[in-house]
C-alpha cells in the first residue's frame, strides 16, 4: 500500500465513528491547549525579561567580586561566619579575609597577569543629586557608571564614548523634551553631594537616551572616568579607597580567553561572571518555571493518551473482520500496524492543531485584556508569546505521545490471525 493510501485509509477510518473520534480528539485538545498556554506564558516571561536585560551589553567584560561563603538559604541560613585571623596588612595579594571590599592595587594584582586582559576598572561608588537642563527644572538623579566595554542600547543618540558624557533614561528624557532627539548634544548640569554636605555641579553632554530595561529605566550613566572624578570628590579621604566589585575588560570576545580568565579569577577567590552568565541565570530560572508549568500540561496529555489507547482498542475489536480480510488479501503486518498507528497520530495531530490554535487565540485575547489593565506598570509586557518553533515542538510532542499510545493497539491488530479474525463474531 502506498503511503498516501495508508494516510487516506486511516483518516477515513477515523471518521467512521465521528463522535468517538471527536471525544478522543477533545481530550488531546485539552492537553495541547494547556501545553500551548503554559509554553506561551514561559516564552512571554522570557521575552519580557530578555527585552529588559538585553539593553545592557558587553561581550568582553567580566564582572568580578570577592567570593563569600555566606549561606543564603537552607538549614544553615543565619549561621554566622567565623572571624578569620589575619596580619591586618591587607596588602596587594593578601586580602582581608573578613571583607568583600578590595583596593585598586589588589584588583590589579588579581587580574593584570591573566592573558588577554586589557584593563581593570573598579566599580566606583557614586551618588547623584539632581540633573537639569540650563535653567530648567531640576530632577532627582539616580547616577550609575558603565565600565569600558559595557554599553547601554540607546533609543536616541549613541552610547558613551568618553568622559564628560551622560546617558539618561527615556522617562526623564521625555519629561525634558517630548522630542527626545532634541536633547542629544545638549549640556546637562549634574549635581552631587560632597562629604561636607555641599553640592558640587558638573556639566555633562547628553549623548544618548537609553532603551527601556530593568537597569536603564531610572538610572543615568556616565563613563568610568567621570565616575572616578565624582567618586574622588565624594569619598571620605581618611580611609583607604576600597571597592565592592570591579570589571575586567578583555582584548577580544574570544570565548576561550574569557573562560580562562574566569577560571583563573575563580581560583584566586573571586566570583567572575560575564553579562551573558548573569542573563543566562535569569533565563534558567524562567526555564525551570516553564518546565514546571509544562509538567501539569503533560499530565493532562498523559491522561488523554489513555483515551487514545481506549479508542483504538475498541476500533481493533470492531474491525477485526476487516483486518482479517485485509490480511487474507495479502496486507502485511507492517501495513496494518501503520494504519492503526497513523490513526493514533492523526488523533494527536487534530487535537494538537485545535489545541494550539485555541491556546493561541485565548492567549492573544488575554494579552489584549491584560495590556489594557496593566499597561502602565509593565510597558511592553505580553503575558503570552507564541513562537512558531515552540508551537511546532508542542505539536510534534503531542503526535509523538499519540504514536506511543497507539503502539499497543496497533501491535494487537497486526498480530491478528486472518482465519480467526474472519470468523470473529
Amino acid at each position, binding site marked *: *500500500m*502506498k503511503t498516501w*493510501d495508508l494516510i487516506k*485509509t486511516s483518516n477515513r477510518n477515523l471518521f*467512521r465513528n465521528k463522535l468517538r473520534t471527536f471525544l478522543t480528539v477533545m481530550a488531546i485538545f485539552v492537553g495541547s491547549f494547556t501545553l500551548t498556554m503554559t509554553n506561551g506564558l514561559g516564552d512571554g516571561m522570557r521575552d519580557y525579561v530578555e527585552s529588559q536585560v538585553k539593553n545592557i551589553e558587553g561581550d568582553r567584560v567580566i564582572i568580578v567580586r570577592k567570593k563569600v561563603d555566606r549561606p543564603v538559604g537552607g538549614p544553615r541560613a543565619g549561621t554566622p561566619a567565623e572571624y578569620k585571623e589575619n596580619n591586618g596588612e591587607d596588602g596587594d595579594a593578601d586580602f582581608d579575609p573578613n571583607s568583600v571590599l578590595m583596593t585598586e592595587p589588589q584588583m590589579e594584582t588579581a587580574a593584570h597577569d591573566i592573558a588577554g586582559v586589557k584593563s581593570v576598572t573598579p566599580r566606583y561608588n557614586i551618588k547623584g543629586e539632581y540633573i537639569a537642563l540650563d535653567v530648567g527644572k531640576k530632577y532627582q538623579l539616580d547616577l550609575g557608571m558603565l565600565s569600558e566595554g559595557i554599553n547601554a542600547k540607546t533609543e536616541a543618540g549613541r552610547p558613551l564614548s568618553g568622559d564628560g558624557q551622560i546617558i539618561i533614561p527615556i522617562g526623564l528624557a521625555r519629561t525634558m523634551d517630548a522630542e527626545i532627539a532634541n536633547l542629544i548634544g545638549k549640556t546637562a548640569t549634574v549635581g552631587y553631594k560632597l562629604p561636607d554636605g555641599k553640592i558640587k555641579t558638573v556639566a555633562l553632554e547628553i549623548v544618548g537616551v537609553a532603551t527601556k530595561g530593568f537597569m536603564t529605566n531610572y538610572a543615568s550613566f556616565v563613563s568610568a572616568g567621570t565616575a572616578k572624578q565624582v567618586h574622588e570628590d565624594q569619598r571620605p579621604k581618611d580611609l583607604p579607597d576600597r571597592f565592592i566589585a570591579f570589571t575586567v575588560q578583555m582584548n577580544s570576545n574570544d570565548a576561550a580567553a574569557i573562560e580562562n580568565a574566569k577560571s583563573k579569577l575563580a581560583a584566586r577567590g573571586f566570583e567572575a561572571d560575564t553579562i551573558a552568565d548573569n542573563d543566562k541565570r535569569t533565563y534558567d530560572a524562567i526555564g525551570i518555571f516553564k518546565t514546571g508549568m509544562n509538567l501539569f500540561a503533560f499530565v493532562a496529555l498523559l491522561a488523554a493518551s489513555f483515551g487514545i489507547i481506549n479508542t483504538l482498542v475498541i476500533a481493533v475489536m470492531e474491525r477485526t*473482520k*476487516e483486518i*482479517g*480480510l*485485509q490480511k*487474507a*488479501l*495479502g*496486507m*502485511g*503486518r507492517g*501495513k496494518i500496524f501503520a494504519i492503526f498507528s497513523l490513526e493514533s497520530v492523526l488523533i494527536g495531530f487534530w487535537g494538537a492543531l485545535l489545541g494550539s490554535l485555541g491556546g493561541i487565540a485565548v492567549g492573544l485575547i488575554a494579552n489584549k485584556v491584560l495590556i489594557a489593565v496593566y499597561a502602565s506598570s509593565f510597558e511592553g509586557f505580553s503575558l503570552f508569546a507564541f513562537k512558531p518553533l515552540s508551537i511546532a515542538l508542542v505539536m510534534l510532542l503531542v503526535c509523538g505521545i499519540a504514536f506511543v499510545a497507539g503502539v499497543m493497539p496497533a501491535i494487537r491488530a497486526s498480530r491478528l490471525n*486472518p*482465519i480467526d479474525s*474472519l470468523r470473529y463474531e
Partner: protein
Amino acid sequence: MYSLRTASLRLTFMLETRDLSKTYHSDGVDYEALKNVDLSISRSDCLAIVGKSGSGKSTLMHLLACLDMPTNGGVYFDGRDVSLLTERAKNSLRNEKFGFVFQQFFLNGRDTVFENVVLPLRIRGASAAEIDTNVGNAINAVGLTDKKFKKAKDLSGGEKQRVCIARALVSDPEVIFADEPTGNLDSVTGAAVEETLFNLNREKGITLVVVTHDSDLASKCDRVIEMKDGRIVSDTARLEAK
C-alpha cells in the same frame, strides 16, 4: 513480488499437497483436522471440496490458500513449497495469484462498489492506470458496471456477492477460492452467482476451488473431492466435456 521458477522440467500441478496434516491444540487436547492429505489440482480445474462440518474441508482450503501453516507435509504452488516462502512472499502470492470469495461478504457498506473492489490493488500499491483498467474490467465481468459508484450497503445480497467476486477477480488471479459462496443467498440469486464463477473458470481459465456442503453446487463442478474426518474419501471427476 512472487515470481515463478518456470524452468522446471518436471510436469508439475498448479497446486499440490503432499502428506498434508493439520493438528489444532486447544485446552491441552489435540484435534487432528487434516490427516495425510495428498491432492493435486491442475490449472483451470473446477474443483469442489465437499463434506460435513468438521470434515476438514475449510482447513484444507485455508492451507491451500496459504492462510494457515500445516503441522506436517507441504503445499506446493507451481512446484514450490510455500512453507519455504517468507511472510512477505506469501502475502504477495495471496494478493497476486489468489482470489477469495467468502460466505460472508466482508464488504465495507459505507464505501462504494469501486472502493471495495479496489482493495487488493491498493494493498499491492498498484498504479492509478492499473487500478482504473482492472477495477473497471472486474466490475464489468460481474455485470455491475451501472452500480460502480453505489454504496455497497445499498445492494442486494446477490449483487454484494458479485462485488466480492469482482474483488477476487481484480488482481487477475490464477486461482479463486470460494468458501460457501452461495451460503447466504436464495436459490435464484445463488444460481446467478454460481454461473458467474463457472464462467470465469470456462472463459478465463481461472482455477476454481469451491468449498461447500451444497451437493447441488458441487455437482456442477468438474471434480468433486469428498472429505470425512480429515481425510479424502472420494475424488470424482465428471467426464463430459466442459
